[in-house]
């Protein structure tokens, strides 16, 4: 049955996300019904070549999945899933490259606005990436349509199964809870007893006032983080626990980042009378500020991504509920 699961996994990859579970459930039942009927006729389990033949009759996973998508004119439904994955991966990579370039600019001693200018080129780069990838896939669609898609594919060569259950095991959740508790206590205590965080560095650097101002926010973050993990432990069947936890933490993280970015000094020199110490604090503040800007962008992307994921899952469930799933 592993080959059937691998086939369904490959189909699932190319299906519209809102209907994935529903379609796979129905396809699985259809395939199993066929197998059962053949096995009843033969009075023995199906051999591997017979399973291969059955899957080949269903067609390539991408072709089968494409039938569930609406027809598109520029890029057809068979190519669309690959186009979409390529586009999102390329846009993410472009962002990563610019973020690294921006940090490198800062490390080279340029001004904060100069390194931000590197990052601000992203919309233009993203537009060009989108245009080129769309152009290439449109060409593939146009010329590819002139060739017959080969029927020579082997279900035995489909990718292996990956863990599809988004729920973590109880052991993983307990380990996560322990690590979060240790980290939370260390962080909250460290904001008061700063040597816990800075170690010997306390002789040179301390937290600025903003960290104490938003201390209640950090307490809230730690409590919410622990509560979310504990609730996933208490309700193991809550499959949306992971995305909900990431969404809530990213949103709370944005509030913290807002206060930190707007603070005059994140870190201050322990001995402000020494010019070297002042310069050190200034450089560290500069680097950390840049990191906070990148973290803000990543958090905004996470909030959008997790919201979209939750909404599409919700829509999928509503669809299933409508049809009695």
């Amino acid at each position, binding site marked *: 049955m592993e080959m059937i699961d691998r086939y369904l996994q490959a189909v699932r990859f190319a299906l519209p996300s809102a209907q994935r579970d529903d379609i796979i459930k*129905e*396809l699985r039942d259809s395939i199993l019904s066929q197998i059962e009927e053949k096995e009843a006729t033969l009075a023995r389990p199906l051999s591997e070549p017979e399973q291969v033949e059955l899957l080949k009759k269903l067609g390539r996973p991408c072709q089968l999945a494409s039938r569930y998508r609406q027809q598109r004119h520029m890029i057809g439904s068979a190519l669309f899933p690959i186009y979409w994955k390529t586009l999102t991966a390329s846009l993410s990579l472009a962002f990563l490259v610019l973020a690294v370039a921006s940090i490198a600019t800062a490390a080279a001693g340029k001004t904060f606005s100069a390194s931000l200018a590197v990052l601000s080129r992203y919309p233009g780069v993203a537009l060009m990436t989108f245009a080129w990838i769309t152009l290439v896939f449109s060409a593939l669609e146009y010329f590819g349509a002139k060739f017959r898609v080969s029927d020579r594919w082997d279900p035995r060569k489909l990718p292996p199964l990956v863990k599809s259950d988004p729920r973590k095991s109880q052991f993983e959740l307990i380990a996560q809870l322990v690590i979060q508790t240790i980290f939370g206590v260390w962080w909250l205590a460290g904001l008061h007893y700063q040597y816990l965080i800075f170690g010997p560095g306390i002789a040179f650097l301390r937290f600025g006032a903003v960290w104490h101002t938003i201390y209640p926010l950090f307490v809230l973050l730690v409590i919410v983080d622990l509560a979310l993990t504990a609730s996933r432990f208490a309700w193991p069947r809550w499959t949306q626990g992971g995305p909900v936890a990431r969404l809530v933490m990213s949103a709370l993280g944005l509030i913290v980042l807002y206060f930190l970015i707007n603070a005059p000094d994140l870190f201050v020199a322990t001995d402000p009378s020494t010019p070297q110490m002042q310069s050190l604090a200034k450089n560290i503040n500069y680097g950390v500020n840049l990191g906070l800007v990148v973290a803000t962008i990543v958090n905004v992307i996470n909030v959008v991504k997790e919201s979209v994921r939750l909404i599409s899952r919700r829509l999928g469930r509503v669809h299933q509920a409508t049809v009695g799933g």
Partner: protein
Amino acid sequence: MNHEVLENLRLELRRGCLILAVLAELRSERYGYTLRKALADQGMEIDEGTLYPLLRRLESQGLLLSEWREEEKRNKRFYRISSDGKLILKQLAAEWKSINASLDGIL
């Protein structure tokens, strides 16, 4: 080349007929696999990749109703024609008969 053209035209010709056949067959409730077998038994072969997306499309158009139920220890999605679907089927069947009669004369 001729074979390819014929295959495309044949598929085009079958497409509309399949909708009619599926709607007619779902006057009694069935799940996908038994529907496919019932159609095949009457000479209307249809593969999964065509049938299941078609069922979804007809359902989204309000012509079919579906429900997940357990049968033979597995959850199956049962389909049946809706009241709107019955009306459409009646009109399509009349259209089919009229086209058929015309084509008999022409051919």
